[in-house]
């Protein structure tokens, strides 16, 4: 049994811990906020996935959920919040306005939050049904589970 087996298991363990303990920072702006409230409420309950408690400080969060339309005016705030989060961090664009700007194509709407921050998972919908949001979070969890950790594998 090579060393890869052990480092592989270690990487899996780290990924398992990360994906089931997402501390989200909901950057809520618009209508999608209503569906975010529904997802956090008992009926759809995102707490089941470990993404229980929104951390309202970027220093304590590792998942930035960008909920709703991003306007040019919010750009500096969003960029500052993204930069304040520590690694590892992920970004989910919740809703079509955060993904691509939605049907607002004008002087004040940014065509997607990925113009200023890198996004891991895009959840389309206007607003998306809570089931879509849960699907998006699960896809993010799969992405986290697939992540490689070269520092771990190289150190051992």
């Amino acid at each position, binding site marked *: 049994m090579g060393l890869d087996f052990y480092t592989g298991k270690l990487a899996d363990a780290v990924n398992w811990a990360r994906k089931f303990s997402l501390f989200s920072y909901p950057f809520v*702006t*618009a209508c999608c906020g*209503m569906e975010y409230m529904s997802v956090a*409420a*008992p009926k759809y309950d995102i707490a089941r996935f470990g993404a229980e408690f929104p951390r309202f400080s970027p220093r304590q969060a590792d998942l930035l959920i960008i909920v709703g339309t991003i306007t040019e005016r919010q750009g500096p705030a969003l960029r500052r919040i993204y930069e304040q989060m520590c690694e590892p961090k992920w970004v989910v664009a919740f809703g079509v306005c955060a993904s691509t700007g939605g*049907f*607002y194509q004008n002087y*004040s*709407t940014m065509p997607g939050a990925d113009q200023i921050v890198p996004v891991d998972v895009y959840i389309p919908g206007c*607003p998306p049904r809570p089931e879509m949001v849960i699907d998006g979070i699960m896809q993010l969890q799969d992405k986290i589970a697939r992540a490689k950790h070269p520092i771990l594998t190289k150190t051992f």
Partner: protein
Amino acid sequence: MDTPLANPVRSIFATPLREDSVIVNIGPSHPATHGTVQIIAELDGERVLRTDVHCGYLHRGFEKECEDHTWHNLIPYVDRLNYVSALVNDFAYCDGVERLMGIEITPRCRYLRTLLSEYSRLVDHLTCVAAGLMEMGAMTAFLYLVMVRDFMYEHLAALTGARVTYSYGRIGGLACDLPDGWLARLEEILVQYEDFVARVHALVDRNRIFIDRLRGVGVISTADALSFGCTGPILRSTGLARDLRKDAPYLAYAELDFDVPVGIAGDNYDRYFVRMREMDESVYMMRQLAQMLPEGPINVDDRRCTFPEKQRVYREIESLINHFKLVMDGPSVPAGEVYCAHEAPNGELGFYMVSTGSGTPWKVHVRSPSFVHMGAASRMLDGGQLADIVPTFGSINMIGGECDR
């Protein structure tokens, strides 16, 4: 942080009034500002000396989009103004266009629009009260109320196809009629609503902490409220019973029996109670309307705005051309202007529309109650405590989509 980021706002006070006071920035990303609003507050310890409220972070260019789309295509945009009570925006907008075109909607449509407006009022007040309570720490009340709201969302999705932003109103009518069993399910939901709201009342109304946090906080007088343009629950909480549904009835409100709840002191507790009582009145109105709903078509039979049936579009050339013209050019609305106001859950929601006779508007302006109330926010926040900013702001019910358009 390599590059410095530009600051989009300029505060009116850069230097503190006194040497021992502190200027604090709250927002624009903050858990309790209901979206993106920035409040720059000067504090003397915990006491707020003065505030500078900055809204506009959700300015999505609605009025500019209006000049580029047909009157029909704007209905989804209009939904997303006050996105917690989207149907009221739909119907107010459609009402304005119908007045410009001189169209009278059918009786069934009139009653249905009234019923759904009251349904939206329920959803809006539920959301406002739930969020306000959660921000003060009453998580249970939030969970109860959002549970009921979820039932209502699913119910409205059965009717319109969407949970939050429906695009259900049409110029001259509605998108589709009620499905079977919808009214029976409505009564079930209203019974569950009464159960859940009774629990919230039991938890909160005579709770010492709740009363201490809200009574006498965020007070605004009637004269100030009028001067700052407040309408809706904020004005009614000061004791003045101004409600467009009673004063200038539209839709089917003239035929309904309901009261207009008013407060006594104009503080946060009164606003909470006015909203709770308005919800009860809405339930009463909805039950009356469910009995009064007449049969008949929901769309007016006017080819200037109503789409012809698909069967006819595929068979008759006139219907095909009619459909084509309505989709490509939009309904031709005669030249003129109109200011159409409805009593939205936040207050007087007005649409000022200017038409030059074509299928796209020349100008649409939204008189949004939340924006005007932001002007009054400083009056309610100054002189209070830092911790009072959160419940006061919650009781104003600023909805970003409507405030910033």
